[in-house]
């Protein structure tokens, strides 16, 4: 059997039975990358030698009957906003060209402990700012389902790498939808856990109070397994939650009884693509057939989410990105007149346009005289958005919605209209603002053959509930079994 496009469960079972080795699996991954990544553009950096060496060690462990990690021998791709010791970590920015962290992110340590094989680093919108992966300083990533379209963003490289069958699992980060939206655009399961569920230590910050790391996989079981490996308390991240991690995989096959799914009236309004709406309604019918109750709920402040997000996220970003000044690491301009000029020139040259735009917006929102009107106002409405969810979850177990208003859009389509691009995140932003877990699952295809996702949102720490509900839908449908033809 070809490992291309296989699920994690299938691959682990094959390795378990000795049908192929981790080295063979990784070689197949590199072959696939070699065959199609010049067109897809998922990877910024691969480290074949290190990966194969690690794979050989796992194979050796397996031969000796030594204890193996949960992801033993599986190739995994990591979004290039997550630090990997001794390997380049660029955030798809000229600013960090050649930057090599002297330490591993918490999640990378977790992957290594679980015996996963890190294949390489994937493309993204520079510093995770964007919804299309077009804002990379190095390359544009294309959607494996239609190379003229974006894979979504900002974790577009990680989504495309899984969708194109290069790796079965990958890591993304989600600040306003950067895992869920590309998962939706690429026909994958992608999850943003509760804020604090996975340590951010080593995740290069975009907006610290919104950023979370999460998994991409072909199916719910793969995402649940990867989440299980990554989740848990880390004393190096003050915002990491100390609660124990349940086994997400153990109860996955058990359907939820008496499931109440909320549908927000505010989510089905003008701007929502007709085919997307139809797919979502069809998914709701699937749940109805499985015995779930669909309830109408209201999230009255959800229409403010984009405005709130763009007062808060750029403010935090303007501060988080102040450290790139050409002194201790990163790009330093060749020509400058003095210290201040060195800062301005280095940053002016090192950052791309979208990053500069958000830094400017954030610096403005925090500056003297504007703080109360923008940043503080945003934080207050953010609280109201969270309150809406708390009230809604008193009436339902989960909330179902579209992931994005449209299927994957064309490369170049929105790039010159920042506000229109920002509005494409309208369904995903709220979960970040409220700190809630959300998952995107395959729920159909457009007439043009592009995947359409369904988003499920839950209350804090309801990852297990979300995954079980996602699995109920997955068992009743076959959308997740389809693979694009990238040849």
């Amino acid at each position, binding site marked *: 059997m070809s490992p291309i496009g296989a699920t994690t469960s299938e691959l682990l079972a094959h390795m378990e039975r000795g049908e192929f080795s981790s080295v063979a699996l990784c070689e197949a991954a590199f072959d696939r990358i070699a065959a199609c990544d010049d067109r897809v553009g998922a990877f910024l950096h691969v480290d074949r030698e290190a990966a194969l060496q690690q794979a050989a060690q796992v194979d050796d462990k397996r031969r000796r009957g030594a204890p193996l990690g949960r992801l033993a021998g599986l190739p995994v791709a990591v979004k290039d906003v997550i630090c990997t010791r001794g390997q380049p970590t660029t955030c798809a920015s000229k600013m960090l060209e050649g930057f090599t962290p002297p330490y591993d992110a918490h999640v990378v340590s977790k992957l290594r402990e679980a015996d996963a094989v890190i294949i390489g680093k994937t493309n993204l919108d520079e510093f995770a700012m964007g919804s299309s992966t077009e804002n990379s300083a190095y390359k544009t990533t294309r959607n494996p389902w239609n190379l003229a379209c974006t894979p979504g963003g900002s974790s577009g490289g990680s989504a495309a790498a899984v969708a194109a069958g290069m790796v079965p699992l990958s890591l993304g980060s989600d600040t306003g939808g950067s895992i869920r939206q590309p998962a939706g655009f690429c026909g994958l399961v992608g999850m943003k856990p509760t804020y604090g569920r996975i340590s951010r230590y080593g995740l290069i910050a975009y907006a610290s109070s919104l950023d979370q790391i999460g998994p991409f996989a072909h199916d719910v079981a793969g995402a649940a397994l990867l989440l299980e490996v990554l989740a848990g308390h880390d004393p190096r991240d003050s915002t990491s939650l100390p609660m124990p991690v349940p086994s997400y995989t153990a109860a996955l096959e058990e359907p939820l009884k008496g499931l109440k799914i909320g549908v927000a009236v505010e989510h089905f309004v003008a701007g929502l693509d007709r085919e997307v709406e139809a797919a979502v309604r069809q998914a709701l019918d699937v749940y109805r057939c499985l015995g779930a109750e669909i309830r109408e709920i209201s999230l009255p402040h959800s229409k403010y989410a984009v405005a709130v997000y763009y007062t808060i996220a750029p403010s935090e970003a303007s501060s988080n990105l102040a450290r790139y000044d050409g002194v*201790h690491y990163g790009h330093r301009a060749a020509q400058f007149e003095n210290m201040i000029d060195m800062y301005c020139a280095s940053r*002016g040259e090192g950052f791309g346009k979208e990053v500069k735009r958000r830094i400017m917006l954030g610096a403005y929102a925090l500056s003297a005289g504007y703080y109360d009107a923008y940043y503080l106002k945003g934080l207050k409405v953010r609280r109201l958005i969270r309150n809406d969810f708390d009230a809604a979850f008193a009436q339902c177990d989960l909330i179902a919605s579209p992931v994005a208003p449209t299927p994957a859009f064309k490369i170049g389509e929105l790039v010159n209209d920042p506000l229109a691009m920002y509005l494409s995140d309208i369904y995903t932003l709220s979960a970040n603002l409220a700190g809630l877990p959300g998952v995107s699952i395959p729920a159909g295809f457009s007439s043009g053959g592009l995947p359409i996702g369904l988003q499920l949102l839950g209350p804090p720490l309801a990852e297990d509930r979300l995954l079980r509900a996602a699995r109920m839908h997955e068992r009743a449908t076959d959308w997740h079994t389809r693979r694009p033809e990238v040849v």
Partner: protein
Amino acid sequence: MPTQLTPAEVQHVAMLARLKLTPAEVADFASQLGRMLDYFQVLNEVDTEDVEPMSYAVEVRNVFREDVVQPSLPRAEALMNAPKTDGQCFLVPQILDGG
């Protein structure tokens, strides 16, 4: 009439953020930031009297580490990504008053 920032306002913010902008960027940002600020006006519809601002996504409190020394990085690793060093220190152009 959509809001436009003046080039001087854009330059002031760019200086706060230490960004050297091209004239084209100044012009673009003047209108794009203005458009965003207009868009933010929608928030004024919301009554936020007595609403506690939400700075953190989770209600975690009192997180401390114990006062225990951990190994530091070797100097070579601390300096390895620096654009300019003398092997001991980071080097920057001569610092004048006012930074």
